[in-house]
């Protein structure tokens, strides 16, 4: 290192979300520094970030030497490469500061929570829009001098306190504070919430100190492993779950149909490495699709004893507390019609059109753990008995069969019972096989479009149909001659439909492929009368 490098004050950055008590923590640090003979300065950019936005605090301190009359110069904002400690209460915020270069290998001790408060854009995505937290942890580990990871939110909840106390304890536990724990306790004080704060402080401090050294608590941060490392085992696990789900949903016979469909598809050849790359996902999607949520299913799920027990737990109701659960139901005519026996359902839909009933009935607030409410739900759940003859059942099964046929068409091009992709079926041009696999990969994603209820479901369904009748139909025209461009277009259109629930992005992609847009839907003419200004 260059001998001319100047000693500067110790620099600490606190990254937090508005309302998490970052200001309180900064206050504690300032007070503790003052009490332990340090010069100190803290500042922040709260602004409107107090309303749940990202916010950061910056603190510098330096030991007060004997005879030193004035404080050294303190900076007001962190300088990249010059941060001694970065403590963050939220994983994504840690990522944000990593991105800015605030964590450098020669300087920075990183203490980060692994808990997430998802941003709106992550939450509002049609599917899974979450940022990969593992990536942030890996980057943090690579860039920090020392890194410590812990679930600050969980600790705070456990001790009935706020994250600021946990952060303070974590700083103390990492040994970066030049004052004693007694001083920390002293500045937390003896106010109304002090007891919980000190409990949280101690817990975090001990957790880190106990795991000795720097890289600790990292073990806490490993994500939950959902799937088994062995794909075959994984596949059978999913099929087992699917069978149970469908027996619960309908009956053993329906579960049988599920297995038969899978068997037909893979010709009993799932154990090839190649088939296993897709089979678990196909099994999963098919199970979810076959257990589509209709009124009967929802009513059934909502009236189970296990559900009320779970709600009680989640709401943190005490043993002596009573709970009342109210449901917000607004079943539409179509949803009712769809679970009635087909003829009755059709009659109801005709009535709806003839009499111009509104699409949805009156809003219901139903107490599901009250007697009338529960009985109504149980009655609705009985519709399962004639589900096989309902309108919706027929429609869903037809769509499922169609999807399976499409899948099979391309699947058979990519392999023929043998174990590896190199074994291309005879008569199929060799360049087609890998493309066919890719089509299958996209096809597996298609059922995702059909989720949701009422409007969301209707839009998803129309996007599905649109894709089926346009780009997928094109691919099916001559499956043996898949054009890479056609595949790319199909993929882009599927991405668009999955990311934009309104279907505008989908139409844009389709337009680019020379497919005429759907005729505009009839919308009531909206008339705002003009006022003449000349009267």
């Amino acid at each position, binding site marked *: 290192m260059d001998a001319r490098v100047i000693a500067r004050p110790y620099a600490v950055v606190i990254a937090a979300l508005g309302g998490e008590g970052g200001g309180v923590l900064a206050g504690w640090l300032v007070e503790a520094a003052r009490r332990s003979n340090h010069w100190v300065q803290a500042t922040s950019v709260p*602004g409107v970030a107090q309303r749940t936005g990202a916010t950061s605090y910056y603190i510098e301190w330096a030991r007060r030497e004997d005879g030193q009359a004035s404080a050294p110069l303190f900076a007001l904002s962190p300088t990249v490469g010059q941060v001694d400690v970065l403590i963050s209460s939220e994983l994504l915020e840690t990522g944000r500061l990593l991105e800015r270069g605030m964590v450098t290998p020669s300087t920075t001790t990183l203490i980060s929570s692994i808990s997430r408060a998802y941003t709106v854009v992550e939450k509002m995505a049609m599917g899974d829009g979450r940022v990969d937290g593992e990536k942030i942890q890996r980057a943090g580990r690579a860039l920090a001098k020392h890194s410590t990871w812990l679930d600050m939110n969980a600790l705070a909840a456990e001790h009935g306190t706020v994250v600021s106390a946990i952060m303070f304890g974590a700083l103390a536990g990492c040994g970066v504070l030049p004052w004693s724990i007694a001083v920390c306790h002293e500045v937390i004080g003896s106010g109304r919430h002090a007891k919980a704060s000190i409990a949280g402080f101690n817990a975090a401090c001990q957790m880190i100190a106990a795991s000795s050294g720097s890289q600790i608590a990292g073990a806490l941060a490993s994500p939950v492993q959902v799937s088994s490392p062995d794909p075959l085992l994984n596949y059978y696990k999913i099929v087992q779950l699917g069978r149970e789900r469908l027996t619960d949903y309908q009956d053993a016979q329906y579960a049988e149909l599920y297995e038969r469909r899978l068997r037909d598809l893979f010709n009993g050849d799932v154990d090839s490495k190649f088939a296993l790359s897709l089979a678990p996902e196909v099994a999963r999607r098919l*199970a979810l699709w076959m257990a589509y949520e209709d009124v009967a299913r929802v009513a059934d799920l909502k009236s189970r004893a296990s559900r009320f027990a779970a709600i009680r737990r989640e709401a943190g109701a005490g043993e002596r507390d009573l709970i009342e659960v109210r449901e917000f139901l607004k079943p539409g005519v179509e949803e009712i019609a769809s679970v009635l026996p087909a003829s009755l359902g059709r009659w109801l839909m005709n009535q709806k059109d003839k009499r111009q009933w509104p699409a949805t009935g009156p809003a219901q607030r139903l107490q599901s753990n009250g007697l009338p409410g529960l009985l109504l739900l149980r009655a609705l759940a009985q519709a399962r008995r004639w589900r096989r003859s309902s309108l919706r059942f027929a429609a869903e099964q037809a769509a499922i069969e169609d999807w399976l046929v499409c899948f099979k068409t391309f699947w058979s091009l990519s392999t023929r019972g043998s174990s590896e992709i190199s074994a291309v079926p005879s008569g199929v041009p060799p360049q087609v096989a890998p493309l066919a696999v890719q089509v299958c990969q996209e096809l597996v994603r298609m059922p995702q479009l059909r989720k949701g209820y009422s*409007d969301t479901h209707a839009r998803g369904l129309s996007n599905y149909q649109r894709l089926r009748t346009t780009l997928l139909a094109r691919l099916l025209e001559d499956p043996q001659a898949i054009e890479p461009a056609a595949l790319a277009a199909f993929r882009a259109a599927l991405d668009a439909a999955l990311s934009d629930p309104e279907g505008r992005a989908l139409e844009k992609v389709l337009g680019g492929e020379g497919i005429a847009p759907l005729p505009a839907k009839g919308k009531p003419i909206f008339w705002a009368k003009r006022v003449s200004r000349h009267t």
Partner: protein
Amino acid sequence: MERSFAREIESLKLGAGETFYGEGILAVTKALLQSGVTYVGGYQGSPVSHLLDVMVQARPYLDELGVHVEACTNESSAAAMLAASVMYPVRGAVTWKSIVGTNVAADALSNLASPGVMGGAVIVVGEDYGEGASVIQERTHAFAMKCSVWLLDPRPNLPSIVSSVEKAFELSEASNTPVMIELRIRTCHVQGSFEAKSNRAPAISSRALQDEPAAFAYERLAHPPATYRHEKLKYEQRLPQARQFVLDHALNEFMGPKPVRTRPGIVVQGGLYNSLIRAMQLLGLADSQGEPQLSVLVLNVVYPLVPEQLIEFCEACSDVLLVEEGQPDFIEQELATHLRRAGVPTPLHGKDWLPMGGELTSEVLASALQRLIPDSISSMAEVLKAQEIAAEMLGELIPARPPNFCTGCPERPVFSALKLVEKEVGRVHISADIGCHSFATFAPFSFGNSILGYGMSLASSAGVKNFSARRPIAIMGDGGFWHNGLLSGVTSSLLNRGDGVLIVMKNGYTSATGTQELVSSPLEDVKVKAQGNSATGSELTIENTLRGMGVGWMKTVHNYRVSEVQATIKEALSTDYPGLKVIVAEGECQLERQRRIKPLLAAQRAKGERVVRTRYGVDDATCTGDHSCIRLSGCPSLTVKPSIDPLKTEPVAHVNNDCVGCGLCGEVAHAAALCPSFHEIRVVSNAGAFERFVARIRHWILLRWMPA
């Protein structure tokens, strides 16, 4: 008000020799009292809100001193308040957020600056520039120059700030000119200390009344022909007086060694001094205490400049770097002119090496310094490497986290309703405004075609409605309504028989700045009676005002009834009524309600009374993970979590424990016919013996019917 300043009020009372610990902006408050102000006013806004907030809460103490505090309804009225110092030898100070506040105050400011002042008049502006700013990025400097008002930009530490405030009054009196002090965001919030002086009770005050008003003096009016003379006075008298004062009192400071012809020197705005020194430390150009090894001239007064001081400094250096933040580069242009006129050949660097816009952080300054001193050490290599590794390992950019409506905010439902209306009638032109409701410009709502300033939404749709097939909607908070919107929006629309739709968010306070009071804030007894419910329902000042002005179509809706709000907006868009249509969307700020209800519920629970707590939930099993509910709400407590169902790999919606039970989830589920997964949970604590008995029987019966 959102925050209590009880502790800070005590530090305002500190006497001579005691140490004040606290925030920069509160140090300013204390400095005002030490300077013997007679009156203080202002309008709240980050980063200077606390100055006024603490004074409003400290009224009893200020009454003892005889200091009058006015929570002005806008910056214009705050600036006009300084008129008291035009004809009387009284000191006064006002504060606001700049640049926007200065824009609003501009008219009064010009009319104040023209006749000049007798008593010291100080304007503390929060320079909302750079990271964390919430307004357009412009410099207050321009106003100082065009009005001939002096502008101080002190070094960002408490002793410097306090002494600047004290000197500002003296400078103002010595040159008969109002003085502005600009404080940047981090400076306002900096925690530090200074040695206090005793507060001075003003000689003329609410406790020491003056018997007679000032004598008539036409030459003190901003009215022709006096204005012609005022202009002359500005440059013939006041400017030289001010420059002399700056020199005499050494308001600008020389740091580091004496300038020599062989070394470069630096001229810096006082507020940027610490960033400059940190940058110099990085390059080995300042010691660990912060003592620079180059000569630095610190301009704590950035307008007016003192030409002889600058010329002398520049002449003595080999090169000069001028560190000036923002654009245009007013100081550089003036300095260059002075040097040219004086024939000083020293090369001058500034915006040729520094970015025109944006904050001058230490890393930005370091790169300019490196050009000035090429043999200085470089410390940026590791940082660049770190940024590169981070970018590579993180892949996509980390998504932004802009501010959002609080959990339970009553403004969110209005935008949910608006989204549903748009589904029916198509997109509508929406004029947005300043206030919490401007968070609707972020996801998931993404509403708003323009933001033209505080209270300006209705006025900004005046041109649009004439060529729009659908009526435009203007959205305004009650804060904006009283700040400006009533006059520039409503009256103008009525005069011109405008056909637009105005939605006024009646939440009772200027919430975005810290729930300060409005003329239409609910009264204390109403709030006590309302307990945890909205207290704004019975407060009718806005409605009465509008009716009195002749608004013929006006409906008040309670925000949480989403279907009703939806129907009302639709009606406003389609009615035959020809004039302005106003929807008052009522729902008290959740922060205020929570502040009331939390202690109330805790007390009830402690006393063993029956307490009902409401929250919402989502059924894991029926949620399909399409998140359409989130796209209609964006509530922080409505989030996602991994599904417990192993067959579902996508995250499901989830209501976390921050839920305050506002009811929006259920309302939206109904209004949008969204999804049956939402449920309301009422947890009844301390239920009576009979209620518990009935519940137990019911549960026993229900269990017969429930599958496991």
